[in-house]
């Protein structure tokens, strides 16, 4: 026993020397390239979510970013770059000023977790001096006539996620949909995306209904008693449908639909079978390793925005280690060029669409506690990349950059 202990102590001393030597090992290039990036999360006053499971943690998004920066640094210490990321949570009227201040301090890569208008204001304010990466806003206009040359999108568009769900529903041969959407502007945009997806993949929307938001408290004690009475009445007497697709981005009603519809039908969209970029139960393609590292760092499950910010900063890590440059023009050219590719725990490489700066990516379809499917579905073919069956393909894009 004692001999073994001695061996172990010796071993750790040896290991400590090894660790220290590894970390002071000279980098491949003589100078270390300092890469200072920023994550700006624009917090907007919102009503509480329907489910307390959706209450946002204070560090939402930022933890994903910190994990990516640590991951980038494990490469950077061998390739000669030093990665640092500044996290800022601001109100929407402060975003532009903060972004400009960061650029003045040498930040050339800004990850935005913000709504579309704030994103565009920041992008227009910083111009060529930084690459702006959209990690949150899903507006289709940002990928079309509202696009910007200095903006890349890591967040998927509404078109991509609705296409992802539509492909699976068509694979299931659940072709007849009842579309129920909310009354907020974002709900109307999402409903429009579902209509487009239905047309694109040959589904038929047999009926549409609107769930008006009449305000009031989101959660009440024993509220389920009323929901059990109201939802069946709200969904009764629909034309025959296979699946109820809910478009409720404002999070007012959709969570109340599964098992409460008049007809015994599955719910999909904003509740039930949901298209998303990430989920804590996702384990395929090595994702378990990401989940474990994230949870060790944050003491909570990863949310889609955490993953999206992580991805946005991994994009930075990849472009900098391959080009050894932090110049926005050099980075933008490489990111939109043929050589950029990144592994993202989705089983295939993710790359940027040169016509609108949107990151091509698979979309997860999640249900109760496990992954149900991943789109694009294998049966949908494409001459360039199957991932381009999701969202706006090159001939359809109205983006001029």
């Amino acid at each position, binding site marked *: 026993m004692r001999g073994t202990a001695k061996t172990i102590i010796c071993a750790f001393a040896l290991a400590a020397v090894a660790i220290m030597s590894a970390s002071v090992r000279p980098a491949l290039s003589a100078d270390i390239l300092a890469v200072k990036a920023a994550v700006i999360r624009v917090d907007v006053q919102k009503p509480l979510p329907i489910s307390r499971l959706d209450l946002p943690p204070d560090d939402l998004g930022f933890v994903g970013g910190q994990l990516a920066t640590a991951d980038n640094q494990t490469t950077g210490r061998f390739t000669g770059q030093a990665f640092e990321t500044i996290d800022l949570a601001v109100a929407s009227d402060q975003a532009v000023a903060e972004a400009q201040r960061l650029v003045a301090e040498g930040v050339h890569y800004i990850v935005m977790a913000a709504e579309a208008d704030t994103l565009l204001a920041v992008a227009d304010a910083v111009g060529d001096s930084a690459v702006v990466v959209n990690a949150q806003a899903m507006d289709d206009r940002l990928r079309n006539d509202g696009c910007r040359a200095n903006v890349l999108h890591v967040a998927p568009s509404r078109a991509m996620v609705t296409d992802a769900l539509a492909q699976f529903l068509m694979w299931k041969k659940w072709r007849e949909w009842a579309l129920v959407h909310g009354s907020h502007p974002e709900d109307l945009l999402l409903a429009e995306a579902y209509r487009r997806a239905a047309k694109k993949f040959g589904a038929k929307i047999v009926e549409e209904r609107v769930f008006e938001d009449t305000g009031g408290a989101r959660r009440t004690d024993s509220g389920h008693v009323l929901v059990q009475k109201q939802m069946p009445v709200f969904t009764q007497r629909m034309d025959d449908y296979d699946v109820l697709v809910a478009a409720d981005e404002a999070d007012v009603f959709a969570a109340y639909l599964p098992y409460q519809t008049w007809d015994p039908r599955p719910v999909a969209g904003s509740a039930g079978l949901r298209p998303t970029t990430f989920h804590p139960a996702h384990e395929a393609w090595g994702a378990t390793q990401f989940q474990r590292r994230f949870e060790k760092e944050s003491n909570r499950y990863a949310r889609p925005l955490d993953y999206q910010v992580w991805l946005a900063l991994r994009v930075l890590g990849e472009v900098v280690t391959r080009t050894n440059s932090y110049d926005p023009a050099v980075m933008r050219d490489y990111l939109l060029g043929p050589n950029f590719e990144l*592994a993202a725990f989705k089983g295939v490489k993710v790359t940027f669409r040169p016509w609108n700066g949107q990151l091509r990516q698979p979309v997860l379809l999640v249900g109760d506690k496990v992954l149900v499917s991943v789109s694009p579905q294998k049966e949908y073919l494409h001459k360039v990349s199957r991932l381009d069956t999701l969202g706006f393909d090159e001939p359809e894009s109205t983006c001029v950059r």
Partner: protein
Amino acid sequence: MIRSTCAALIAFGALACAQTAGAYTVYVTNEKGNTITVLDSETWEVTTTIPGGQRPRGITISHDGKELYVCASDDDTVRVFDTATLKQTHTLPSGPDPELFILHPSGNPLYIANEDDNIVTVVDVEKHTMIAEVPVGVEPEGMGISPDGKVVVNTSETTNMAHFINTETYEIFQNVLVDQRPRFAQFTADGSKLYVSAEIGGTVSVIDPAAGTITKKISFEVPGMAPEALQPVGVRVTSDGKKVFVALGPANRVAVIDGDTDEVVEYLLVGQRVWQMAFTPDEKFLITTNGNSNDVSIIDVESVKVIKSVQVGEQPWGVAVSPN
């Protein structure tokens, strides 16, 4: 090869030479089934199935054929089995979540990639103790060792690097940036080349180990197949360096590469999601693990043909063959 092993064994009074030449024992880890399937390489039939611990993945065998090492990833340990009795005799301290490992050519120590902790753990297989821990990149998996035993190469899946570790000092002295998600590192028998596969990048880099540079990148193409499905994982090279086999994952094929030109010569259709492979000691056969069809494929190396498929356990991952 077999004769000299026999001589060594006779000197130690072992009886293993009673086996007919050509009959080896093949061990396959079944990641989901938590078992190890044992096959006979003469009949290619399953002789038995034994419990393998939780999530058994990497598997290797001692040079004398007596001990079978299995990475039981969810048990955070390496399980060691006596090959004569197929009973577990002990475990080795492996560090958390061991995935793949490699034995020094002398038979000791064992270099283990700890997927969760970003380290390579070095373990003495005789004393059953941890000798050292080497910090590497994020998500280490692939482990290769130079034929002279002086360099261990570890690949990190998220850092996209091949780290070259000096086996005397345990220092990383060289790093090569490869394509996305490297999974496997394999030296040629003469040590002149190192092959590193990049699963998501879709390439195999041919590296000059002395210079630390990539001399060639091998890409794959199968008509009618989406390029993203060609995901190289395991790599094996015949000892004469003439044939290189690369498992292409969800492409369900093994690429055959001319070891002199490093050009792809053909693709062999095997089972689904082929990841790891192992030669029989005489290099007459190559066995591939097909994770999603729950079988292994047997390739006749001389004729470069798939001769058989054999059902094993659930989601076969690794494969090792007895040296005798």
